[in-house]
């Protein structure tokens, strides 16, 4: 679960790739939390996430909550099919509150 990070106008852009599952959850959490420690706005690009399960979902929820705690913002973008399915099923789209979810949905043509 490589996470690559780029910086753009003081905003950190994290790019997730591969599976967000129980197998990668521990590493993913550590890595993501290191990134989260920096106080800045950030965006997580989920377009390359091929698979996501409950463990992956938990990590996203954790990241969102941490961001709220630190008073920074976290945006999820480019949701892949796998991510969308999970968020839809759990009715969590509104929790993350990212408008992109819908547009992305349309882009991918359902």
């Amino acid at each position, binding site marked *: 679960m490589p996470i690559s990070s780029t910086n753009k106008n003081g905003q950190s852009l994290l790019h997730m790739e591969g599976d967000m599952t*129980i197998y990668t*959850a*521990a590493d*993913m*959490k550590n890595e993501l*939390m290191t990134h*989260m420690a920096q106080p800045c706005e950030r965006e997580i690009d989920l377009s390359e996430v091929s698979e996501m*399960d*409950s*463990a992956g*979902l*938990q*990590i996203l*929820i*954790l990241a969102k*909550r*941490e961001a709220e705690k630190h008073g920074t913002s976290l945006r999820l973008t480019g949701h892949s099919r796998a991510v969308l399915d*999970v968020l839809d*099923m*759990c*009715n*969590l789209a509104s*929790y993350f509150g990212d408008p992109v979810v819908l547009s992305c949905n349309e882009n991918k043509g359902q």
Partner: protein
Amino acid sequence: MSLDLDQALQTYIAEARELLQDMEDSLLRLEVDPNDADTIGAIFRAAHTIKGSAGLFGLDPIVSFTHIVEDVLDRVRDGDVVIEANLIAVLLESGDHMLHLVDVVAAQGGQLDAEAIARESGLRVRLQAYQDDSEMSHAVQVETEIPLQSSGGGLVETDNWHISLRFGQNVMRDGMDPLSFLRYLSTLGEIVSITTMFDALPPADEMDAESCYLGFEIDFKSDADKATIAGVFEFAREGSLIHILPPHSKLTEYIELIRSLPESETRLGEILVTTGALTQQELEAGLSEQQTSARPDGSTTPLGEILVEQRSVEHEVVQAALDKQTQSKDSKNKENRYIRVHADKLDELINMVGELVIAGAGVSLLAQRVSDNGLQEATSVMSGLVEEIRDGALRLRMVPIGETFNRFQRVVRDVGRELGKDIELVITGADTELDKTVVEKIGDPLMHLVRNAMDHGIESASIRQSRGKSAKGTLRLNAYHDSGSIVIEIVDDGGGLNRDRILQKARERGLIAPNVTPPDHEIFNMIFEAGFSTAEAVTSISGRGVGMDVVKRNITALRGTVNLDSAVGQGTTVSIRLPLTLAIIDGFLVGVGKSSYIVPLDMVQECIELTENDRQLTRERSYLNLRGEVLPFVMLRDHFEVEGAGARRENVVVVTCAGQKAGLVVDELMGEFQTVIKPLGKIFSTLRGISGSTILGSGEVALILDVPSLVQQAVNRETHQVSTRQLTH
């Protein structure tokens, strides 16, 4: 979730039965060596596995009872409780009760009857004596049947199911994904609304990425029944909180639910209202009512309430699951080490092998006729292989008798206690194999004989000592193969049978004429007559004179014989002789006139020529001189009234059965022949001297001789003639 639960349950039942058997064996071993840590461990593991798997299937009665047993065993393992006779007795009885639970609750899908419930509560009390105080209170709480609180308030409006899920932390580690449960659920109906609960998610540095902290509040529209819905979450049950409220549940049930969940009441209330499970009014009414009914602390929910909740859920689930299960009870189940094959298939295979043997015999006959060397060689290789296949196929049905014998360890122990006798069971020849159908049917007669031997045979310790024997009685079960049959012996070192008493009784009952005194073994065998009892006192175990005749009938039905031998003061031996298999035998083909007969090869001892001299003598006497030995014989030609004059040369086949020899006089010896037994129809059941038929390679029918009865006949006639001769002289 594509796993077939019914099939899994069958496997569980088979496994539980085996584990209980192991547990019993181990307990008995423990009685001999109380400090064997390995054995204690094995018993604990057995109980633990039974409990764990029962939980998986929602078999609550089993879980709740086994839990206590496991508790006690755990303490034994830790050395907090010392193994002693009483504890083993309680544990053995608990094992019996668990077996009963498995049979009733898991296999039949029924409920315990009053007697079993009484027994269970008795056992619980006795087990509690061995339990840790602190754990005891916990266990008591778990086991007490908490009645559902009477409902107040009306029904809620919604016609959706409400499902509350809080997954256990280990769900994901156990290889399950909560999301897959939701996916599966959505195949059963429509998820109207869902709220993901992650309040349990700890701060980032405490959170373990592999633990599950998720929960869901789901409103679900479906026509499925409760059992089906609950079945979705079957595998996550352990450690998870699962509440399923049917449509139009009582308002109080929702309030109970709110209180039993870890999140705060207000938050849950809001969720229920937003998802449409409850209306605002319903929520307020429910909560206020609940508060007025005195509850000192609203924030923490007592354990009992959760239990009420879960109980109400599980009870119905168990019932429905079990109903469903009884329907498919016949479905096969698997075991780790064995493949369970339907007996019919095996019989079919053996039948086919039988046909193959017949066909093979036909081929070799043809090969001999055309006298083509190559062909003969090929057929002889083939018949060798066919023979191996036959043996292999028959061996599939053979099981060692040891398992049947071992069951008696427990019987001997229990009956010994009941009678106040110290009796040791010695098993020998446990790996002697015999046909499975025979094994199944021999259990009851054996049980009877063993109990009889313990009750009447072995004396009480004081009498034994006064007779100069060791106080401990010995009962031996022995098995061995002997000329095509298996012999099972039940030997006790008790007082032996009272010959005079039996004789007197037999005369009283008119079974023996007053002036005749038959040989000892015939007198002893009188006890197999119906209604014959020499016991002075009738005990709960035996002595009613019912049974020995049943034993004999059962054994005769298996084409076996039972014999009894006894020496006063030294003990009694009962030998049961049974045929090894019921399908194929190695035969010896003989000819008389144009007919062919088969003698089971195992019984053939030798073949000799009937000399002219002997033939002359047979007119006067019914025995031959076999190297100085008296050999009674049967002329098959006369016996079966075969037409035509005797052949110029006749032969004698010397057969042996149960220690007696006899000669069968035949015309022709035709050699070995693999014989597939075709049973004779009912019409021939009264025919004496014939036990079956077979088909020869040429298509002709050959009759299989019933050697034991022929031998008996020859011997009887011999003795009869001797006695008449004595009288005339």
